[in-house]
């Protein structure tokens, strides 16, 4: 599978890695779908959980204009 996580050999997605998470959200701040991210189902779930934690902690916005 050719995606950012596999290419960079990233096993765990941390909510503090904002630069990494920004690769998976669109300019409006919404999480991209699997078709766009190219992630596996497991990786996509990990990214979603991390984005939600990052949003709660004010590291990522919920919405962006």
């Amino acid at each position: 599978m050719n995606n950012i996580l596999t290419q960079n050999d990233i096993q765990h997605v941390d909510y503090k890695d904002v630069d990494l998470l920004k690769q998976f959200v669109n300019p409006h701040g919404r999480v991209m779908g699997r078709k766009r991210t190219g992630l596996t189902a497991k990786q996509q779930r990990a990214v979603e959980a991390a984005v939600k934690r990052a949003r709660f902690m004010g590291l990522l916005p919920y919405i962006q204009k």
Partner: protein
Amino acid sequence: MTEEKDAGADIVSRIYEVGYHIASTVKEEDVEKVVSALRGEIEKGGGSFIAEGSPSLMKLAFPMIVREGEKKIVHDRAYFGWIKFEAPTEAAEALEASLKRNTNIVRAIVFRTVREDTRAKYKAPTLREVKRTDTIKSSPRRAPEATEKAPVSEAELDKALEHLTTE
């Protein structure tokens, strides 16, 4: 996820991480006191530390509104720090409750994680990397004329003109 059961007792120890925002109204020298109180809370429940990120002032992605009685306090920046620790489930629950009570803490999150370092060594790609110190040199398209001719004397000029007109 790791679960370690102590022999005999039914205490389940798990790996947790706590992320917290300390209010920017707290003085910089008092931030460490708030963190040490947090560490004390973890140790009290029988927890042991694995990793820690010291709090640093950061701008929040959106303003956080905290109600203090009648007043609403808006925080747009806070000291963000985190601690990864191993503790029994009860200790984690007690920590979460104490974080909610703590008025110095704007927002906190406690969740289960893994012992390994989860931070990714990832650098976001940029369109092009030009350092501020870099100077962009422009190469001249035409080489400047190399030789400067010696000044021509009046007599030589007349001679050359005469040569041209006679032809």
